[in-house]
């Protein structure tokens, strides 16, 4: 293994570690919401610092590799991709933490019925799977798996707009729950954003392995 390979490998290991940390943040956030566990929610908010440290480290590593090795071709694309994946993961980490913060801001337990009808846990499940599947796509160079993200992202978009209807109704119906319902709406929006970020990661992965630029293309073209 060449020196550069060693460095790139280390970079990849760091990214995958960060990825797993972000997934665990999402899981803990969901758990905190489901069980209304304020301590767990606080833990998620605290752990966000670790995600940020990963972000700084990976940025620095990429900078060093650029400066010291002048990577080209695949190596260059890996670093560009890493920088962007890092960026997106950091955002997702932020999102996981904000959802936990929303959980903490609730003035009473969330209404189980509302949570079920907005299908927020279904959104969580989809977002989580998207995250772990993109990770797998990155690790195993599986661009087909990466391509499934575009569909799943639109599922999240649909669920987001439906949740708006559900919450509009219930806010009108139950004035006691307005604060919590607004918080749920914010969470749903955040989860929808996770879909967008993950989709961006999928685009970067396809760019890395196939050297094709997919950004800003229509959906049909992306899927072929």
């Amino acid at each position, binding site marked *: 293994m060449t*020196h550069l390979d060693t460095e790139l490998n280390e970079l990849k290991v760091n990214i995958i570690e960060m990825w797993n940390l972000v997934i665990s943040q999402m899981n803990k956030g969901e758990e905190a919401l489901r069980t209304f566990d304020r301590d767990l929610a606080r833990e998620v908010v605290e752990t966000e610092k670790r995600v940020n440290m990963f972000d700084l480290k990976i940025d620095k590593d990429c900078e060093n590799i650029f*400066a*010291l*090795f002048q990577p080209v071709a695949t190596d260059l694309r890996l670093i560009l991709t890493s920088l962007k994946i890092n960026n997106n993961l950091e955002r997702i980490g932020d999102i996981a933490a904000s959802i936990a913060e929303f959980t903490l801001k609730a003035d009473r337990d969330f209404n189980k019925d509302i949570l079920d009808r907005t299908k927020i846990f279904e959104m969580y499940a989809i977002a989580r799977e998207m995250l772990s599947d993109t990770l797998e796509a990155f690790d195993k160079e599986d661009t087909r798996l990466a391509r499934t993200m575009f569909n799943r992202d639109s599922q999240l978009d649909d669920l987001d707009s439906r949740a708006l209807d559900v919450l509009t109704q219930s806010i009108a119906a139950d004035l006691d729950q307005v604060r919590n319902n607004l918080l749920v709406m914010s969470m749903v929006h955040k989860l929808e954003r996770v879909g967008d970020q993950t989709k961006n990661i999928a685009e970067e992965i396809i760019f890395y392995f196939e050297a094709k630029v997919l950004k800003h293309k229509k959906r049909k073209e992306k899927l072929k």
Partner: protein
Amino acid sequence: MSKIETKDVHLHYKDFHALKGVSMAMEPNTVTALIGPSGCGKSTYLRLFNRMNDLIEGVRIEGEVLIDGQNIYKIKKQNIDHLRRNVGMVFQKPNPFPKSIFENIAYGLRVNGITDRDFIEAKVEQSLQQAALWDEVKDKLKKSAFELSGGQQQRLCIARALAIEPSILLMDEPASALDPISTGKIEDLIFELKKDFTIIIVTHNMQQAGRVSDYTAFFYLGNLIEFDTTKKIFTTPAIQETENYISGRFG
């Protein structure tokens, strides 16, 4: 204690002040790159450590040059040979002896008075393995070293230096006469070798310094301008001259 340390070293070559008070220290099992424009003193500095500067007439050296804490300019003259066995050197141009591949590596052992044939054979193989050349030459050890390509010759010279088990390896632009593929091989080799050796490498190729070294020292007009980790030097150098040099905006 650092592996290598210089304290306020001045070197005069007749009227020319080639090194102007250079102080720095190198840790064991690291690669330190010496960079700077031609005539900046980096090669002269490198040659301090095996006293190859002594071969030039009219050289005067002041200050301390310590290896493992011992001032190598205070040792007895007849011990310079011992010093050079501990401090291997690889030169700019591959310079195998006009002998067979085997004899080239055995030479250093014979210099040391080793005559045990089995030991020499084992050592030749081990050194060639270390220099990542064994697979390419194992069937033609009796052939002339001149039949090898330039890159192979340079790895042979590295193997020759390794055979006598130095703890320090000095490299004076070891890849400047080689094509990019051979250069890459030498660079990978340096990365491997630092597990066992403390390496100092002079290079005109900034990218090479970035690729192979842990620390970089920038020399200019006989002064050590900046010495830091290679990462620091190549991303956020502290001194403007360093920045200008590594970014190609020099002079």
